[in-house]
């Protein structure tokens, strides 16, 4: 904004009301725009007026500032950071609204402390995560052990029955290495299937035990095996009629949801 010399001179008359805060907002804005344009006369006039009026406070009676004010100001300053150096017009310097900056000070040691804090939190979170995972794994192991103990109890119970039957199961295909036994108590229809050599069933598949009577297959239960290891599978309430009706037991590979009739090849078979 450029201003004519005579206009600048007129503006000079506004310096006193400006310093004394008596300009209305519109005039004040115009005058500050004029100062921003770089009117040296007005800036010089203002400078002299500010120096002159700054003498007035020297005449005031001494008052004791509130105790702790110094500390409060310095404490507040410690959380603020001075702005980078910049050149500012005199008008803005003098009369621009004093707006406390909100940008907090963050010196290097605070960054470092924050980084250490974040790392500690991450480490703690990882530790908790690992601990939770370990706990879950251990809970699963305990459940497995409990199941095995229960199974062993069944096995022992089956073996301890007065009239338990032991039905050997053999692989139908020669050299398959499949083997098994079915221990069961016909009196209470509880039994334990011991299987060895069967591979882990493919995805979506499971093994299924069948019983045969009168040349018909009846589903007993489905089961899974671990890789290559002998497993004991507990069976409750084997759905048999009179014990004399059961002729044989068989194992097939079936879909996961089970089948009502064997759909796969007979893998193991054992006759009473």
């Amino acid at each position, binding site marked *: 904004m450029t201003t004519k010399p005579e206009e600048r001179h007129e503006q000079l008359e506004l310096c006193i009301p400006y310093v004394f*805060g008596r300009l209305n907002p519109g005039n004040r804005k115009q005058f500050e725009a004029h100062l921003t344009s770089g009117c040296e006369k007005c800036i010089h006039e203002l400078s002299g007026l500010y*120096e002159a009026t700054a003498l007035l406070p020297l005449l*005031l*009676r001494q008052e004791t500032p509130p105790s702790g004010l110094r500390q409060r100001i*310095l404490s507040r300053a410690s959380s603020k950071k001075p702005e980078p150096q910049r050149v500012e017009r*005199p008008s803005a310097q003098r009369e621009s609204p004093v707006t406390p900056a909100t940008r907090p000070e963050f010196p290097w040691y605070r960054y470092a402390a924050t980084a250490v804090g974040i790392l500690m939190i991450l480490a703690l979170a990882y530790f908790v995560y690992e601990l939770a995972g370990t706990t879950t794994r251990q809970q699963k192991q305990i459940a497995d052990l409990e199941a095995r103990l229960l199974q062993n109890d069944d096995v022992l119970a089956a073996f301890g029955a007065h009239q338990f039957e032991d039905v050997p199961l053999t692989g139908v295909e020669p050299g398959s290495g499949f083997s098994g036994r079915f221990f069961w108590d016909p009196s209470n229809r509880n039994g334990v299937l011991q299987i060895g050599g069967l591979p882990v069933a493919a995805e979506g598949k499971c093994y299924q035990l069948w019983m045969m009577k009168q040349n018909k297959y009846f589903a007993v239960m489905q089961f899974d095996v671990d890789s290559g290891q002998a497993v004991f599978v507990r069976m409750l309430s084997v759905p048999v009629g009179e014990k004399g009706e059961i002729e044989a037991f068989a194992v097939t590979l079936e879909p996961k949801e089970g089948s009502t009739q064997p759909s796969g090849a007979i893998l193991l078979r054992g006759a009473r």
Partner: protein
Amino acid sequence: MQRNVLAQRQQIDREDADLLKRIQRSDQRALGSLYDRYVGVLYPFTLRVTGSNEAAEGVLHDVLLHVWEKSSSYAPQNGSVYAWLVALSRMKAVEKMRAANQKRKQESEGGAQRSASAADTKQPAAETIVALKGYAEEVRNSLKSLSKLELRLLELSYYEGQSQSDLARMLRIPLGTIKAKMRRGIQKLRLSSAEEAK
């Protein structure tokens, strides 16, 4: 004596400039030094304008934080650091005063009476500042050329933001007289400050 005062004033300005440079480098001790240096003047000043200890404290707080955050906005060619601090303090104080305008209007008459005796104070604020002692004394002597009415008008206008029309109504003095007295008072103030700066 005049030469001594001038030397003191130049020394004060140099030290202030140094403090501002240190503040720009986030030196909090420099801010503390600036506080110690001028709180004796600025606190009574902001108290005079706001009329409230709490508001005066708030103004001083804002001013010092403004200096802390925006010390680079000070331009030496436009005046001394002290004048800058006073101008900032006045601006903030007037803002606060305007925010509580109704209350301030009720107290303005009492404030005028207080200000009339301000020039006769036995314990000038500046005397709390060792560096400003001689300077303040010289200023007070030079301001003796101000008549009581001139000083009162300047104080009412400067501290309380009273317009000349308001002053004319309040003091029941013709507006033309008010304008003339104020202009003369400002001229005397300027002469005093100019003599100090010579």
